């Protein structure tokens, strides 16, 4: 019985441990646990080439999004600009380094690692690098994927920029720059990349 079930015909809900018989799904549909409504699996729509294109685009925007100013403030003739990293530094320098680290990790480090990690995974899969070394690398990258996805908060930073614009427009003139555009693009591309990406499917590559 045990051996019989440990194949692909059955799936366990990771939230409530219910045993569910796996069925083929029409595309765009996801299977939910009948008992607790946790997502069980969906049809993998990972296209390796599509993800590669999204990844390259994201890498292109990564640097300018981080080094170009995301906001510009004009006040009585003087101009201030800030990048995401400077924002994190500004709070750290005031002694709030926990806040600084939280901002840095969720808006800069985790998204960058996430994109690079997906990029490396795609290269390994696309060029069928099957040596033990690359298998080990892929395994390592996949096991950190969930954590990185949870830590990266580009979408929340995007909303924060908008909230800041409205809040500060009370005091001074606010301008969006090239950095804002690059950051917005990075956010959009990463969003599509994460929709396309399917961790389950990536793991199954290792089974072959």
């Amino acid at each position, binding site marked *: *019985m*045990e*051996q019989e*079930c*440990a*194949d692909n*015909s*059955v799936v*366990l809900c*990771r*939230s*409530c*441990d*219910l*045993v569910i*018989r796996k069925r083929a799904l029409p595309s765009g549909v996801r299977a939910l646990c*009948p*008992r*607790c*409504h*946790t997502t069980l699996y969906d049809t993998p729509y990972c296209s390796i080439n599509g993800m590669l294109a999204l990844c390259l685009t994201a890498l292109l925007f990564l640097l300018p999004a981080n080094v170009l100013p*995301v*906001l510009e*403030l004009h*006040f009585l003739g*003087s101009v*201030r*600009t*800030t990048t995401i990293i*400077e*924002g994190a530094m*500004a*709070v750290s320098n*005031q002694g*709030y380094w*926990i*806040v600084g680290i*939280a*901002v840095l990790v969720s808006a800069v480090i985790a998204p960058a690692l996430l994109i690079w990690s997906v990029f490396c995974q795609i290269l390994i899969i696309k060029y069928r690098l099957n040596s033990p070394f690359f298998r080990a690398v892929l*395994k390592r990258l*996949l*096991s950190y994927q969930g954590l990185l996805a*949870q830590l990266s*908060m580009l979408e*929340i*930073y995007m*909303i*924060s*920029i908008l*909230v*800041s614009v*409205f*809040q*500060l427009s*009370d*005091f001074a003139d606010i301008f969006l720059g090239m950095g804002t555009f690059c950051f917005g693009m990075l956010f959009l591309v990463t969003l599509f990349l994460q929709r396309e990406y399917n*961790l*389950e499917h990536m*793991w199954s590559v290792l*089974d072959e």
Partner: protein
Amino acid sequence: MSELNNKMQGITLGLTPCPSCGKLSVHSDIHCKRCGKALVLRDYSSLHKSWALLITATILLFPANLYPITMLVNRGQIRHDTIFTGIVHLVESDMFPIAVILFTASILVPMLKIVGLTAYLIAISFRLPISKQKLMIGFHIIEWIGRWSMLDLFVISITAALVNMGQLLDAKPAPAATAFALVILLTQLAAKVLDTRLLWDRLESKDDANGNT
């Protein structure tokens, strides 16, 4: 396969998904065949870890809300704002939508998270007869919206970097910022470490006795 009914759990078959890669494994294998991670049928210690994190977060929620989170100097006048007074100020200056966004992210979400997680942990620890379905839906919501509390901290970091022109106009974070960051971190961890399957195990026997789910 005929004994596979709609109530059967993986634990009764000796099956468990790998905690790292999700591959369905036979528990007696000890390690996952795909990624090498140790297999666990149930993580009973997760309940204690989750309680500890949640209690710490609840304590920190007080300084996070009572102390000022930002300090603003405007033409020589210094103003300290707590999360709440900051939002009240936004309402007064007719920025209602922004106030609603910040209220949701900084007050409503952390509170809901703490109340929700407490209900969840109490239900598991003391086997309270609360509907498991409802608890689980609440748990998924908590997992999903928890991240949005970071919004306020991002806004503070942007503001602090942009607005610093001495006595004319200056914005700085204040002590509640660290407490608030820790509340977000600890509540996220409390939800993350918890083995949710415990809820379905512990209440199952009681429900079975009643003859329904």
